[in-house]
């Protein structure tokens, strides 16, 4: 059953130099009890998508089309008061940098308690007990209730954020690069922890990251995003083993250890497009080694290629040869000079 369904969502940023099409017709869905992983480089529109879902876009940005259906309700049509009741209570968030996600001048315990009190009427001792329990679940000593964020280590702060995100037992948890700032061992602990909590609490997760490996380890479905559009989407195993989009192939190359340990590390040269003004053609054409004229003039639509597998590329019929070439470093140009 579908918990979150995003249909054809578009978001525009107004800037001094013109409009930026940060999201352009994005569609995806997250099922109950499932994990969806969204992968893309920084600046591809991942954060904009998250903010569009919960309606906390900055004042110069606005959703210009599409729907965000959560449990059957369209969040884009809801007023601020109704949205506020859904935020955190039903959709919570594990944020990117745990260091800045907590207010430095209040204790961690107080901030979590505040989160409860925004949504529920509860007396002090019950709140306190709930937080202690949650601290136990995520592995924080309950005695640290009255400590300030700066007294926590990076890993502990991330646990505190997780405790905060789960305290109201939401249906959906959005995890935005939850472990980027942490070292690999702590990263692993955190994800093990999240998976364990998921078994006991039964929430769905929408994981957003630039690290395709994390998605492979933790998610059921994957979406590949580039330039504000979905490039490829489908079950993780499908998309990773039988990629149809050159960008997916490129992303896989930059994380060598996951699929094929012998594979050499290749990065995609160039930088993501600025998305300013009216755009023609495939967003990835600039950096795509297989781009032809049609790629620059016509934007490919997401087409079905497997049971639940879609990709937006003009050349899905030539995928065999693309896969073969994409595995070779030379195809991607001089990757050493790239950023």
């Amino acid at each position, binding site marked *: 059953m579908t918990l979150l369904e995003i249909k054809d969502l578009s978001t525009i940023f107004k800037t001094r130099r013109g409009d930026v099409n940060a999201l352009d017709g994005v569609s995806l869905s997250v099922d109950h009890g499932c994990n969806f992983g969204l992968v893309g480089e920084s600046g591809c529109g991942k954060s904009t998508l998250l903010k569009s879902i919960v309606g906390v876009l900055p004042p110069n940005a606005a959703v210009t089309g599409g729907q965000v259906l959560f449990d059957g309700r369209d969040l884009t049509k809801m007023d601020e008061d109704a949205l506020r009741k859904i*935020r*955190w*209570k039903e959709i919570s*968030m594990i944020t990117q940098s745990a260091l*800045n*996600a907590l207010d*430095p*001048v209040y204790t961690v315990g107080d901030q979590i308690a505040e989160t409860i009190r*925004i949504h529920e009427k509860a007396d002090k001792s019950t709140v306190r007990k709930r937080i202690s329990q949650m601290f136990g679940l995520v592995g924080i000593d309950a005695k640290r209730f009255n400590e300030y964020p700066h007294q926590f280590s990076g890993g502990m702060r991330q646990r505190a954020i997780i405790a905060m995100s789960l305290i109201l037992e939401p249906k959906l948890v959005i995890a935005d690069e939850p472990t980027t700032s942490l070292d690999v061992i702590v990263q692993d602990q955190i994800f093990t922890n999240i998976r364990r909590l998921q078994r006991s609490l039964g929430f769905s997760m929408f994981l957003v990251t630039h690290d395709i490996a994390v998605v492979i380890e933790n998610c059921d479905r994957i979406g590949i995003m580039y330039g504000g559009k979905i490039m490829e989407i489908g079950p993780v195993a499908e998309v990773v083993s039988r990629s149809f989009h050159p960008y997916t192939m490129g992303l896989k190359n930059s994380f060598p250890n996951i699929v094929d340990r012998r594979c050499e590390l290749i990065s995609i040269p160039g930088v993501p497009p600025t998305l300013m003004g009216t755009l023609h053609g495939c967003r990835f054409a600039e950096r795509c080694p297989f781009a032809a004229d049609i790629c620059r003039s016509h934007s490919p639509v997401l087409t079905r290629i497997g049971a639940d597998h879609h990709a937006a590329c003009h050349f899905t019929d030539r995928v065999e040869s693309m896969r073969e070439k994409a595995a070779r470093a030379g195809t991607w140009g001089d990757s050493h000079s790239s950023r």
Partner: protein
Amino acid sequence: MLKYLVNRILFMVLTIYVLATLMFFMFRLLPGDPTMTVISSAMSPKAQEAMKRQYGLDKPLYRQYTAYLNNIVHLDFGYSFQHSRRVSQMIAGRMLNTLLLILPSMIAAYALGVIMGAFIAYKRGGRTEISSVILATAFQSAPVFWIGMLCIFIFSVHLDIFPLGHILSPGMHYGKSALAKYLSLDFFHHFALPFTVITAYNICFPMLLMRSSMLETFGEDFIELCKMKGMGEKRIIYKHAMRNSFLPIATTLPLILGWAVAGSVVIETVFSWPGLGLLMVEAVQCSDYPVVQACFLMIAVLTIVGNFVADLLYGILDPRIVYK
């Protein structure tokens, strides 16, 4: 904490000592012999000698210096050249008057400034913001004595609502206690205009600073998270954004307090407010150097103690500060 306090207090003493020493040598070594004002060359050599002895000017410099420091420790600033009174007696009441004017206006200015700054930051991008920023900048750019003069011109001379200056009407009696004097309606009548002018003038700085500090805080991740938590906008602003934005403003408090105390020199002149600043200006004009020295040191002490108090307050506000 205790170690920090001790260190901090020792440093305050050192600062005051350095300033006292600076004063001593400035008066002895810079051109323009201050003794010339009391010891006229028309006096007989014998009388001149007697005068020098009276003020201790016949002794070698280092003896004068130690005597000077010793006197300061005992809060003895000698006798005024002009009024033949003990300087310490002249100063005590003046210091109280200065504090009574500066402290309430600075507290009011900071409180109002912070609230108004938060408000215009909240209204960012609109007309309110732009016009407040322009107005506040222009107001803060005008010299405060000029604003004082214009206010006297409008409210005292033309509308005749407030007195022209001074702290109390001449010839009035308020009984024996000093408290009755400062609680009298007459005092507040005199106090109102200078208080309002200083407050209004000093609102601008914390207000503009609070605005930019708020704008910076709005970009912080934890504010965004507050929104995602479903927190109401008012709660975000008052509980989280303001508290955090206030921190950088609190760090400027000592500096501004210093300006305000030092700036009392001009404001007291305009309003003929009998405080340390006015006393100092008058003393400088008639070369009454013991009084000048004493006023300068007392204003410095006010500044330094103000810095200290503001630092301690900051430590209470920001849990990340640990005093070592």
